[in-house]
């Protein structure tokens, strides 16, 4: 019995979501309290298992008893290895802080509290499903469910057109990725004969390289969708329509990192041999393209959340690149550090947005450094970690990826270095405009720090953003054999990334000065315009793929269907019956009632006829 305690990881949030949704519609506080308690419960449980207070392997639940020869039953089991439990620590930890922060952030919207907190709880349930899954089918269930909860939460303010559209876009774009993912899962089952992570590693040598490449790349499609990699990256910036705490939890720290987690999980269980050269090159290439494009687009965004969203894309690109370079430990390390500091940045942005009366344009902020000191300091901690200032967590993890790139394929190293410079530049731009100078709009003039529920999570996350890269934390967080967090090692990667840091900072200060400008000096030209237009990729999808291919295609097919198929068959049938009708016109009065009567009589007649002809009937 006691060994089944870990099932609470799943059941607690699921039950809470159901209760919130069904019974606490009128009672906002109860819904919130219940959800926070469940997050606290899972976090506590996670700590208990990590510290060894609780042990034991939970039973496997056979969900669909469909086992036949060569096909395993579809079962739900919890795989609680170090990799999964460290990820759980991040998910439940940040989840708990975001739940608490939401209390302050959603104060003005209490009427929808039950829906909001039920959504958060159902997200916790689904994310846990992905993290603890012991087979790919269970991963897929969680995969779809996080997509659903993300749909729910992006569209929380569904009466706003843009939010409803963004939610739909996120779900459908993810479905495109899942199309490939599902093929990959089925191929895995056909090729490896199992979906279970613990049985996948055997017999890889006997499988032809081409089949392995196809399988891994199909599975990677899932990661492209969920982790918003090019060319399916378009949903993530739009997802910023959701409440900011949701962006912090789902669209920065946990769900979007699920693709990376899944790929690392596959690398660990299939063995690195399954990741063929071609597959690795494609994966690393996709990561690198995403990292560069997203960083470029971030340079010209004016919405504080969008800057962070593009930055998330770019960092996810880094992680995927590391996966492609077969540096799973570097990818996971960056995932952990990124989760803390990006959640911090988003929650900081959330605090700023609330205090500026829901203003998100950085050009209408300014001078917040004096008025919101706690938020500013925390936000800067996050920024330092993101732009990899030595000593902050992001520095160590980014260095590890750059090391791996230099070792395996120097091209990706230089790409990574370029992205680092861009990252520094856009984050410095963001901080200068937001915190320095003087207020550019009325909302920013009276801003002040949020209350306890908002400041406490910020401070805790700031601490993590600083320390999570240090050896004593990192060695614990990254459960790979032989992994040791770096100290400061002087070498090419260090010099290059310092160079990138200095170049980025210098450029930003030269261009934006001390935040006195009221307008972006870079805007107005062609490059800026195309970056603001997201390099026209979204437009191409909207107008080209959806507008022309899908809409016109669907209408053409609809026309062909009604004109040709319906016309041809119906006309043919009508002609046929018309001929019979002429023969039998004395029966047919044209009345539907008479006609149905005739059918009835006919049927009974047929039965009698048969019974008569075949006495054995």
């Amino acid at each position, binding site marked *: 019995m006691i060994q089944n305690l870990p099932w609470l990881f799943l059941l607690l949030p699921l039950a809470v979501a159901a209760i919130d949704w069904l019974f606490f519609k009128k009672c906002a506080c109860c819904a919130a309290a219940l959800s926070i308690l469940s997050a606290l419960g899972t976090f506590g449980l996670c700590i208990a298992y990590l510290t060894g207070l609780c042990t034991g392997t939970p039973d496997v639940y056979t969900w669909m008893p*469909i086992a036949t020869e060569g096909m395993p039953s579809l079962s739900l089991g919890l795989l609680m290895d170090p990799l999964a439990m460290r990820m759980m620590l991040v998910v439940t930890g940040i989840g708990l802080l975001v739940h608490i922060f939401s209390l302050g952030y959603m104060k003005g919207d209490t009427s929808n509290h039950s829906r909001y907190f039920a959504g958060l709880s159902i997200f916790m349930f689904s994310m846990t499903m992905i993290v603890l899954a012991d087979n790919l089918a269970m991963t897929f269930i969680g995969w779809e469910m996080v997509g659903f909860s993300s749909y729910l939460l992006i569209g929380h303010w569904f*009466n706003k057109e843009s939010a409803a559209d963004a939610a739909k876009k996120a779900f459908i774009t993810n479905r495109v990725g899942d199309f490939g993912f599902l093929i990959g899962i089925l191929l895995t089952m056909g*090729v490896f004969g199992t979906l279970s992570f613990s049985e996948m590693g055997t017999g890889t040598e006997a499988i032809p390289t081409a089949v392995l490449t196809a399988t891994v790349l199909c599975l990677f499609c899932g990661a492209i969708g969920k982790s918003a990699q090019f060319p399916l990256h378009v949903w993530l910036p739009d997802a910023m329509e959701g409440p900011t705490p949701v962006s912090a939890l789902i669209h920065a720290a946990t769900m979007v990192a699920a693709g990376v987690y899944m790929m690392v999980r596959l690398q660990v269980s299939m063995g690195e041999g399954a990741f063929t050269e071609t597959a690795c090159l494609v994966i690393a290439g996709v990561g690198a393209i995403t990292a560069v494009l997203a960083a470029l687009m971030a340079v010209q965004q004016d919405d504080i959340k969008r800057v962070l969203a593009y930055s998330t894309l770019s960092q996810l690109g880094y992680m995927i690149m590391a996966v492609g370079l077969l540096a799973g430990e570097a990818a996971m390390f960056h995932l952990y550090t990124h989760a803390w500091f990006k959640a911090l940045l988003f929650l900081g942005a959330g605090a700023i947005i609330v205090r500026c009366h829901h203003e998100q344009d950085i050009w209408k902020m300014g001078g917040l450094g004096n008025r919101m000191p706690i938020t500013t300091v925390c936000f800067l901690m996050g920024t330092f970690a993101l732009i990899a200032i030595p000593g902050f967590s992001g520095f160590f993890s980014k260095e590890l990826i750059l090391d791996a790139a230099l070792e395996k394929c120097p091209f990706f190293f230089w790409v990574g270095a370029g992205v680092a410079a861009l990252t520094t530049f856009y984050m410095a731009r963001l901080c200068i405009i937001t915190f320095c100078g003087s207020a550019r709009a009325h909302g920013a003039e009276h801003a002040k720090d949020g209350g306890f529920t908002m400041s406490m999570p910020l401070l805790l996350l700031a601490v993590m953003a600083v320390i999570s890269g240090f050896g004593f934390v990192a060695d614990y967080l990254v459960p790979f054999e032989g992994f040791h967090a770096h100290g400061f090692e002087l070498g090419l990667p260090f010099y290059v990334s310092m160079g990138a840091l200095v170049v980025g900072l210098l450029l930003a200060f030269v261009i934006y000065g001390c935040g006195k400008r009221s307008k972006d000096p870079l805007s107005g030209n062609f490059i800026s315009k195309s970056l603001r237009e997201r390099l026209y990729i979204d437009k191409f999808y909207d107008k080209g793929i959806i507008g022309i291919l899908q809409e016109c295609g669907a209408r053409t*097919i609809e026309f062909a269907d009604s004109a040709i198929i319906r016309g041809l068959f119906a006309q043919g049938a009508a002609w046929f019956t018309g001929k019979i009708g002429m023969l039998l016109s004395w029966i047919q009065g044209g009345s*539907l009632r008479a006609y149905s009567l005739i059918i009835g009589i006919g049927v009974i007649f047929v039965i009698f006829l048969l019974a008569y002809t075949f006495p054995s009937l």
Partner: protein
Amino acid sequence: MLIWLILVPVIAAALIGLAKAPARLTALASATFTLIMGLWAVISTTLNPDCAECACWSTFAGHDLQFTLALPLSRIMLLLSVIVTFAAILGLKAPDKAAERSWSVSALLLSTGAIGAFLSDNIISFYAFHELALIPTFVMIGYYGRGDRRTIAWTATVYLGLASMVLLAGLLLLCSQMGVWSFSAIKVAVAAGTLPTGCLTAGLLLVGFGTLVSLFPFHSWAAPAYASAPTPIAMLHAGVLKKFGLYGLFTLAWAFGPACESFFGCWNNLLLVLLLGNVLWVGYVTVAQTRLDDMLGNSSVMHMGYIFLAFAAYVALGGNNELAFKGAAVLMLAHGLTIALLFLLTGQIEKQTRTLEMDSMGGLAQKLPGLGFIFGLAGLASIGLPLLANFAGEFTVFVSCFQGWTFGEPQFESGMLNTISGWFGGLGPVQLALIFALWGLVISAIYMLRAFRRIFEGPVGLASERATALSCTDKLSAAFLAFFIVLFGIFPFIVL
């Protein structure tokens, strides 16, 4: 015992139609009776499978017209029938008293015909019950349908009438060839060595059954008929009666055992192409719809493709593919429940907003959050969200297509299909069809979310302003179906 499942609704219908008994009450009493009785029959035979072996819960006074739950799909289809019937009659909202009378009678007769067909072991009574059930469909569309009801009713009548003729010819050919007249006897005969033969017979059966299930390209009758039919008729026909064709195909294939490969096999590759027509062609037709009822009618046609896929996978392995069979069973049950719920909600939406044009609604979830919640649940179930019923069926069907497959050389002569097959390590026709069919998951997400977006989200539209509140029976009937969708989503295999 099982005979009462048929007799009680017929008696109730006669009381309403001839003796002018209070329509709603009588129909509800009958539906409640069949619900309890049906659930009990299903549960007791599931818990005690040996009792299903003793088969005939009713022999009809020594005659061979007997009802049985021993056929592999009977129980699950009976379950589906009684649940949907109850919901349809509970949620029945007719425009006036006379209509209420005829709606109740047709709903009762329709469900009786379906139940009779699913319980019949004898092939002729199996066929005849279905024919009887079609009549109320035509009449109800003709009298109470939306839009151009006369034309739609006639199209459906002609299509289904011709299909029934083709089907009857196929069944007669088959039975006279086998020399026996019931599913169980065919199974015995096949085991004894009398094998069914003849591509023509198989073709007649596929076209006949296929048209009844709206297999591409014989699907044109279905979407307009569902869109036009009054709510309870659309629920019962799309949810329950339409499964007759698939039920027949699967039960015959089960009876043939390994011989089903040689019998249906000659059409299998063509069937794979046609079912892709259902999933992809009709899928895009669905995307282009602007009215909710048309959209749902087409989506129901589209989803049939996946069940045909299970059939093709079952046949391709000569019946040695239990997964395909089980997956199809769960998917039929799930699809029946979801589409019935969606049509029920369509009726409620039309009552509230007095339109079904999706663009003129909008923001309805603000006015009626409960309706939005249930519609979202049903819509997401129909596009295969895990933990709701359809996912379990779909996923099992997908898995079953890869049953018995191992990587090797491409299996086609040459050409593009061969190239694609080669990329994935030599996929066979069924697996290749599956990969194309999986794109349907994206298509269905597009049309369903788009519909939800247009109807329920965004600012409150003109038509949505009219919405007031749902009645108690509206909520109850919808919640009843939703409960089962969730139940079978979490425990998909409790009935198998």
